[in-house]
């Protein structure tokens, strides 16, 4: 039988507003436990929430960028459940009138183009954290994260593969970074996904029973978990069993998922309208201001890079795929470097080094000014390209002065024809056999001789000068 996997996602994203959603505490990640909180976000009796309107603005930005309709009369609701990390024992969220509805996110995969529909985006407050101290046999609460604003982006069940899910998540991450509404750091939990997955016979339209995997916080884990869970469900059905609707926990170390709780005795959240917060009305002025404030997004940038800088589509797509790369590119170009040259550096050495180091572009120490200086030294003939690449890599994480480094390590390009000619004469004398081969027509060995000369000059020579002199000597 052919199986089809059906996946829907609920993605929680922490918004990067300075203060929390209902009080003025800071939202910064970390901090000593219970130092970023106040009577309001710890739900002390008698305290009341006051909406941070920046949260609505950020949610609207996300909604507009993700092609949603904005609900102009939006309300908050209470979701009631007991858990020690939720100090009020209810989460202020949105059920009946969420801020954004009916969006779509275009994705590209090997299978081609596809639009993933967004059911809704709602605003809510984050909960705190429980810290289990196995030695003291105690659990402590840290409320620093309580009240950090979240948006939950709920997709329709439109995904059919892990590849589509990952393409969508990359797209969400990139979009939200462009909007500057979230830092989307999965490892810090500021972006986390719940995966709803079911399987069915290909070609049928009825949905299978789904399971949910909550709070997935790495792309790698998400890809693995989807593959594992689809396979598990298919096996259950193939063996004549029945998939149980339940929440499962993905264990990254064991590379497997485990049942947590059955949805069949699921909690009743007893949603009802939040009486402490009046409805939010978004008038035309506010809406239009937010709409007008949207920055140039990835698609627009990509088209511009192709049109204005003649970058290949692929390069433009890669660079605009991450806001940090696009910013880096534009700033380096603004500093006077040739766009194509900058693009080559990014597509080549920069992306390779990031990958090797396992860091993200937004976290790198390399600056546009420093790359610009290396490019300028090459253009000015003071550094040859290979030495330039060495400098770029050597100083990637440092803030040492480029010129001082080049000088200190004696890397300045040798362009003096006399010195180069002397070296070439020595190389030719040492490699008479190779010279003879060249002269007999095996011109391929030319490269070897260039290499030997470069080596003798410690790689610092201007390769064009070596080429010219060597050719002249050999062909004479």
């Amino acid at each position, binding site marked *: 039988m052919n199986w089809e996997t059906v996946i829907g996602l609920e993605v929680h994203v922490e918004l990067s507003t300075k203060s929390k959603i209902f009080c003025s505490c800071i939202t910064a990640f970390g901090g000593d436990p219970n130092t970023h909180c106040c009577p309001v976000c710890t739900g002390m009796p*008698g305290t009341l929430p006051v909406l941070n309107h920046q949260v609505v603005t950020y949610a609207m930005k996300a909604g507009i960028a993700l092609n949603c309709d904005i609900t102009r009369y939006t309300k908050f609701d209470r979701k009631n459940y007991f858990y*020690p990390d939720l100090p009020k024992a209810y989460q202020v969220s949105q059920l009946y009138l969420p801020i954004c509805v009916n969006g779509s996110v275009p994705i590209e995969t090997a299978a081609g183009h596809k639009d993933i529909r967004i059911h809704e985006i709602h605003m809510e407050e984050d909960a705190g954290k429980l810290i289990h101290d196995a030695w003291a046999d105690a659990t402590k609460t840290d409320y620093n994260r309580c009240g950090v604003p979240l948006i939950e982006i709920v997709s329709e069940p439109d995904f059919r593969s892990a590849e589509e899910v990952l393409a969508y998540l990359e797209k969400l991450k990139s979009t939200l970074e462009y909007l500057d509404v979230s830092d989307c750091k999965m490892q810090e939990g500021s972006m986390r996904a719940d995966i709803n997955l079911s399987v069915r016979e290909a070609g049928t339209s009825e949905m299978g029973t789904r399971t949910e995997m909550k709070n997935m916080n790495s792309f790698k884990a998400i890809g693995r978990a989807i593959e594992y869970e689809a396979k598990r469900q298919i096996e259950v059905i193939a063996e004549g069993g029945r998939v149980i609707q339940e929440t499962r926990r993905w264990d990254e170390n064991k590379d497997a998922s485990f049942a947590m709780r059955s949805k069949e005795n699921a909690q009743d959240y007893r949603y009802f309208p939040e009486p402490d*917060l*009046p409805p939010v009305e978004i008038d035309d002025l506010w809406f239009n201001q937010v709409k007008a404030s949207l920055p140039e997004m990835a698609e627009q940038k990509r088209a511009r890079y192709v049109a204005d800088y003649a970058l290949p589509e692929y390069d433009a797509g890669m660079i605009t795929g991450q806001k940090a790369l696009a910013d880096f590119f534009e700033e380096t170009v603004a500093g006077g470097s040739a766009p194509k040259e900058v693009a080559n550096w990014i597509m080549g050495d920069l992306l390779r080094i990031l990958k090797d180091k396992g860091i993200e572009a937004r976290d790198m120490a390399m600056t546009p000014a420093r790359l610009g200086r290396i490019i300028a030294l090459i253009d000015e003939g003071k550094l040859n390209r290979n030495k330039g690449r060495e400098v770029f890599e050597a100083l990637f994480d440092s803030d040492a002065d480029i010129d001082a480094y080049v000088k200190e390590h004696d890397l300045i390009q040798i362009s003096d024809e006399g010195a180069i000619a002397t070296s070439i004469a020595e190389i030719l004398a040492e490699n008479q056999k190779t010279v003879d081969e060249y002269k007999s027509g095996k011109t391929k060995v030319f490269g070897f001789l260039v290499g030997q000369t470069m080596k003798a000059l410690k790689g610092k020579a201007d390769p064009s000068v070596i080429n010219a002199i060597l050719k002249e000597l050999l062909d004479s």
Partner: protein
Amino acid sequence: MNELLRLSALELGRKIQTGEVSAAEAARASLDKINGSELGAYITVSEDWAMTQAAAVQAKISEGALQSPLAGVPAAIKDNICTLDVKTTCASKILGDFHPPYNATAVDRMAQAGAVVLGKTNMDEFAMGSTSETSYYGPTRNPWNRGHVPGGSSGGSAAAVANGEAFYALGSDTGGSVRNPASFCGVTGMKPTYGTVSRYGLIAYASSLDQIGVLARTAEDCAGVLDTITGHDVRDSTSLNIPADGLLAGLTGDVRGLKIGLPAECFGDGLEKEVGDHVLAAAAVLKSLGAETETFSLPLTAYAVPAYYLIACAEASSNLSRFDGVKYGFRAEGCTDMADLHKKTRSQGFGREVQKRIMLGTFALSTGYYDAYYKKAQQARAAISGAYHAAFEKYDLIVCPVFPDTAPALGEALTDPLKTYLSDIYTVSVNLAGLPGISVPCGFDEKGLPIGTQIIGKALDDGRVLNAAHAYQQATDYHKAMPTEGGAQA
């Protein structure tokens, strides 16, 4: 009784401003009265704090730096309103020794106006009740007859004011909790328009209905206190952003030409004749002062009590969820896990009435019942507001009873809870519609227990409500009566 204690809050305020009486003298007299009282009006008496405040306020008055008409006047605060560093219990075991690290906005504003706070008054646990018998700290007794309840839930505040244990007191009114005890204790109790007094620091029972109100000897005193505590508060999103006008300055005592409606539905079955007669007599007094009175039909009255209990209990079930033994207050011993901790703490920490209302509200919000109960109750609420809106197209004010009877004997109400719930019929719709309402003393029944008349206005017409009450008090003396030590009329 110290004659000082017979003064109204504003009369005492004037004597303090002129130097005739010192703030410390007034505080001392009140504290002595409290210490000699067996009413159980207070949960916490903060004697040292009161005397410290009195000294500080007196210094400012003497410098001429504080001219508020209530500066130096001793007051009480219901124990569901947070006070910095004075424990705030909501009359519940579950809050135990809870010391809020903040003042309610109303308390801050009282302090700025030079109030001297004597302590925190007793109440029904979490403001759920109309008798003040459900307090974990024991019941408050009616100063007019110790065998009777003072009403509730602000029963401690009402008893304290009636008995000279405070010149005025803050209360809270979710379904009648200021007006009901005011009528039972023979004091004036004003519940202002929803949103006029900040709820920040008022421990929520039912957020969409709760409103801080005032219990005092006169409508004038209520106006003076409301001038102090009313006004927009950025910490309460439901607080109205409208200028707080001078309620006290607006009291003319002139009701000529006012159209007053008497809802026929409020004078029918279930109302004790004695109570009805006194309320009609009060309306007649207003008529004699130049107002026009007319009986009319206010539809949907019968739906007010069920709608109120569904909405109030639903909101309460959520508001009271935070009392889970994790962060503050009481925590049960010997718990095996998290769920056990929640269950034991809440079972042992909440009293029966609170548990009953939490369960009722939880049920009303449950999947499958939400539409039939909570949603329908909200529809009834909207319809009731609409009926009031229509009535106020025709009438400036509505006059009706506060409660069908005078104060029941201690223990009596608890034996028939359904009857007790239904007795809230004249007060709850005012909360559902967010309107201002006042209870004004209008006489005594043959047992010597006070009777109150309720005057209701349209939203934000608090000034007109107070003015009608003031006009009535200019023409009558019921509000001046005070109980004797033994609990009989003096």
